[in-house]
């Protein structure tokens, strides 16, 4: 799939998504409610303390905002369920008959699907990060910006890779939609994007280190808050490369074997 075709799919997805304007009003409302619900806890936890579990009170609100932004961008529903349905109902044959490489198509669709929610969530962040709501010292330091953007992008790509694994898993499984919901919930509640990972019980932290979950929340958020040392930045990048290689390998295997097995109807 060349760059021109990729940008066409991207543009088309954005145009189709813009048809559903009410969805974006709901995404903004949902984001605001999430901020209110999390701030309800954080404001009381930090009421008498300047720092809790490595998170400074001055950064607490920024943590909530960036967490909300990250979750808005990362969580995927539409392209994932569409792809699973295509596999189930035979529509996936167009990727065999036409010169379309499904992983690229999926990426273009996902980017297009997330373009306007990203704008909405960024808009909310900018409003709340304005001097009206936040003190200037809680702004993201400019020199942290490149690494933060990189960590947000890589983290999101890795999670989308996990979604793609489930999509290709549906070549072999009769029912996989619950895995998507479970992945969304786990990535939202256990990745450190709702609460700093350092607040979790030690045993849970140790278990989570063996999973890619910290890469989906803890890493980009700590990067955004300037809480990572150089060693930690390098360690996280290495860890990301390791998980990305595992995911990419599995995706290739499942995609190839799935296509061999695929008989247009019924997978």
């Amino acid at each position, binding site marked *: 799939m060349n760059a021109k075709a990729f940008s066409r799919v991207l543009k088309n997805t954005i145009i189709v998504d813009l048809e559903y304007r*009410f*969805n974006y009003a*709901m995404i903004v*409302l*949902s984001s605001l*409610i999430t901020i*209110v*619900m999390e701030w*309800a*806890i954080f*404001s*009381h*936890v930090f*009421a008498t*303390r300047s720092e*809790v*579990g490595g998170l400074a009170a001055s950064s607490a609100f920024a943590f909530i905002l960036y967490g909300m932004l990250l979750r808005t961008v990362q969580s995927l529903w539409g392209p994932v369920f569409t792809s699973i349905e295509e596999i189930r109902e035979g529509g996936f044959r167009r990727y065999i008959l036409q010169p379309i490489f499904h992983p690229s198509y999926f990426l273009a669709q996902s980017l297009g699907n997330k373009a306007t929610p990203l704008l909405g969530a960024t808009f909310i962040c900018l409003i709340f990060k304005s001097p009206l709501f936040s003190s200037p010292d809680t702004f993201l330091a400019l020199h942290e910006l490149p690494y933060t953007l990189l960590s947000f992008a890589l983290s999101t790509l890795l999670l989308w890779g996990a979604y793609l694994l489930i999509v290709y898993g549906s070549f072999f*499984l*009769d*029912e996989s*939609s*619950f*895995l998507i*919901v*479970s992945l969304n*919930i*786990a990535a*939202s*509640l*256990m990745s450190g994007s*709702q*609460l700093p990972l350092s*607040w*979790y*019980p030690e045993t*849970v932290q140790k278990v989570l280190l063996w999973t890619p979950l910290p890469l989906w929340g803890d890493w980009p958020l700590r990067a955004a808050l300037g809480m990572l040392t150089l060693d930690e930045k390098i360690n996280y990048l290495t860890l990301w490369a390791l998980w990305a290689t595992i995911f990419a390998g599995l995706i290739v295997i499942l995609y190839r074997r799935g296509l061999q097995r695929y008989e247009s109807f019924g997978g």
Partner: protein
Amino acid sequence: MPVRYLRLWFEFAKNSLIRQLEYKVSMIGRFMTEIIWLSGQLLFFKSVFLQVPHFAGWTETEIYFFVGSLYLIDGSFMLFLSENQNRFGDLVRNGLFDFYLLRPMSAFFMACFRHLNLAGLVNLSAGVGLSIWALTHGELALSSADIAIWLLYLAVGFGLLVCLLMSVCCLAFWITQTSNLNWLFFELYRLGWRPENLYPLTIRRFLWVVFPAAFLVSVPVQLALGKLSGAWFVYPWLWLIVSISVLRVVWRRGTARYEGALS
């Protein structure tokens, strides 16, 4: 009459069970999803209480009592209402609501309780387990009268939830697409997943006066724990009366307006 409806409800439950057991993997998957969600919520509060012993006047056991009560209400919502809520808009739009009106029983009862979502049983069981754990933990020391108040006001909260939800669903008689309204309802309902005294005053007022999510779980729990008293025993009933009246009007006018397919 109630016995007949109870028997009918058991028939609906049996039918839903058979239908959902046809897709065993799907059902196990939905159970698994609920378990992950419940564990995530518990982990959230456990992690917060590892950092601070209490906040906003809530101790760890009290919060678990609140979360247990929340699971009870949310589990009941999932078990009894969620499937019916999702289907109601389509029923009206496609004219299948005709079959509800033609049957020799209350169409409202059918609309509310025809389908069951068995995944709600996971939340209900977790709610029962967590509430019993919190109650027997020693710290709360609730009398049997307090427990009776808790159960009574939770039932009122659930009644309120049914009325609010069905009032929103009934808007399907006037507008074509209600899924976004259901989404809006769910987002506002989500505000009730935290004790309302954690929120700033403006939002608390909103949850008391505009969208009464505070009366679903938070107020019943606080009444049982003795954190609220006096007029707070009356407010949930007032809300229930108001929401029943609104629902009656909306339902009557809606069904009178309904003309079969694409009304």
